[in-house]
């Protein structure tokens, strides 16, 4: 059983985000990229399936870009069997990225694609279910629990209020992963360095990216301040609020 995990970098949201001169995009110079946290969860869940013996092979995949080699070597250091980097004209939205990944996994072959459930910059939808549509395979998203046996997966999908729906799905399939059974593992820098020396990243052409999202951004701005919180200068002021609300 072979699992492909598409990986993607997103802006680190703990950093300040600035809009560029066009007023329609983030200022790329200022953005610090990091692995989408839900992709990290997907990779972890895939590696757990491999370690349990349910999967034989985990392939990490990403579209070429800044620091992508490091991200892919890190995935190998964590336990992925191999890494594939896609080249070609850059996808401009989630639909195009999903098309690139769909082309590549169709070439590579897969039983399961495990994608992060969403990314904070996904304006035109969600990678997993869009890939599934291009591949004509079933998809379940918001998954927090996967087991595999006999050509099918049993998955738990999260609803609100802590409710779960359990489903069986025939493979091949795509899953949008919300959370792995345990916190994503960490690969020590020394191990990533060593992998960089010994392993190679396979390259693949991304192929035709399709028409894309079909809508465009007309403006981007930080939410207006002012309606928001009354800022308190010190703990004394905070104590006064707590007393006023009858809490302290």
């Amino acid at each position, binding site marked *: 059983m072979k699992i492909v995990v598409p990986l993607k970098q997103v802006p680190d*949201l703990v950093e300040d985000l600035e809009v560029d001169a066009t007023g329609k995009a983030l200022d790329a110079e200022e953005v610090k990229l990091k692995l989408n946290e839900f992709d990290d969860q997907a990779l972890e869940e895939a590696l757990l399936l491999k370690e349990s013996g349910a999967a034989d092979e985990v392939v990490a995949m990403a579209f070429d870009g800044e620091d992508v080699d490091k991200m892919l070597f890190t995935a190998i250091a964590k336990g992925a069997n191999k890494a594939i980097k896609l080249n070609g004209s850059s996808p401009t939205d989630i639909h195009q990225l*999903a098309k690139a990944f769909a082309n590549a996994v169709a070439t590579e072959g897969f039983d399961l694609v495990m994608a992060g459930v969403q990314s904070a910059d996904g304006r035109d939808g969600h990678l997993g279910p869009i890939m599934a549509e291009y591949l004509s395979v079933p998809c379940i998203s918001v998954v927090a629990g996967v087991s595999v046996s006999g050509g099918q997966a049993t998955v738990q999908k999260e609803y609100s*209020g*802590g409710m779960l729906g359990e489903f069986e799905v025939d493979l091949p399939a795509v899953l949008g992963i919300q959370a792995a059974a345990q916190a994503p593992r960490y690969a020590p820098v020394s191990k990533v360095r060593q992998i960089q020396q010994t392993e190679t990243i396979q390259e693949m052409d991304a192929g035709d990216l399709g028409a894309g999202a079909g*809508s465009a951004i007309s403006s*981007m701005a930080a*939410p207006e301040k002012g309606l928001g919180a009354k800022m308190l200068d010190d703990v004394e002021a905070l104590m006064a609020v707590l007393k006023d609300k009858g809490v302290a």
Partner: protein
Amino acid sequence: MANILVVTEHLKGEFQDITFEMLGKAKEIAQSTGGSCSAMVFGSMSGQTDQMGAADTVITAEVGDDYNPEAYAAAVKSVVSANSPDLIMIGSTSMGIDIANPVSTALDIPTVSFCADIVAAGGGFTCTSQMYGGKMNVVSSVDGALISMVLAGSFNADTGRVSGSPAVEASAVEAGAGKVRFKQLIEPEAADVDITQSDILVAVGRGIGSKDDIEVAEELAEALEADIACSRPIVDAGWMSKSHQVGKSGMKVKPKVYIALGISGAPEHIEGMKATSTIIAINTDKNAPIFDVAHYGMTEDLFDVVEELLEELD
């Protein structure tokens, strides 16, 4: 003239709030543009169309009561193909993610996710999305048909909660391929505390840094006679049990006072706590979106603040 299709959502025989939020907004847009609003309902929810008074028409789909990603998406595809609505409203929810994306991709209709507002503009629509964890408002303009994925809590559900007797049409839906089978609903594990009933909540987020440091927040909770809650990453890290999680996939809480320690305020978290009467947020990032919904805020290290508070409260 905007003809709008609202894809309703139900769980255990009840329409979810997001359904009424979308219906209220759809009705408003339909009226302002001289268009119409239809609501698509699934399975035996067709017996509750009297709750769909905000819609002009209800379209029923015989796909079973238990949600099935494949069957429901196939049904929505059929109805959208047959009716060609201008605007399709689907929740930015667990079910919505399964439905909106394949419909968008298969029928070449643009999707805009994380929508907090939708305005009809010159034959098309303008949507405002809360992106980057709520740090940016992104406006998309679409000329033709559009799928908008609506963030829960964006519109007033009461506006859409209207009784009536809209016309009912049965749709001829295609069955899915049968590759996805619903097995069972699993109820949440019994909780040690029911945070939906708490008067005061001290909630910790990833800013707490480590499992051991949660103790600091617990001390504060004890001093304030509050219960302890958390954001999702704290549960995913295994630091607290799921019953303490506030948000989209956790609990909806409405305490008198909610103290958020090191929580950024992503839309999925806000969804679970924005009805609180007093929200106090402590976060080192002055641009954290939590300050947009909080009533009081402090841009300080949470550990400094909690330590000082504990001294004061002692």
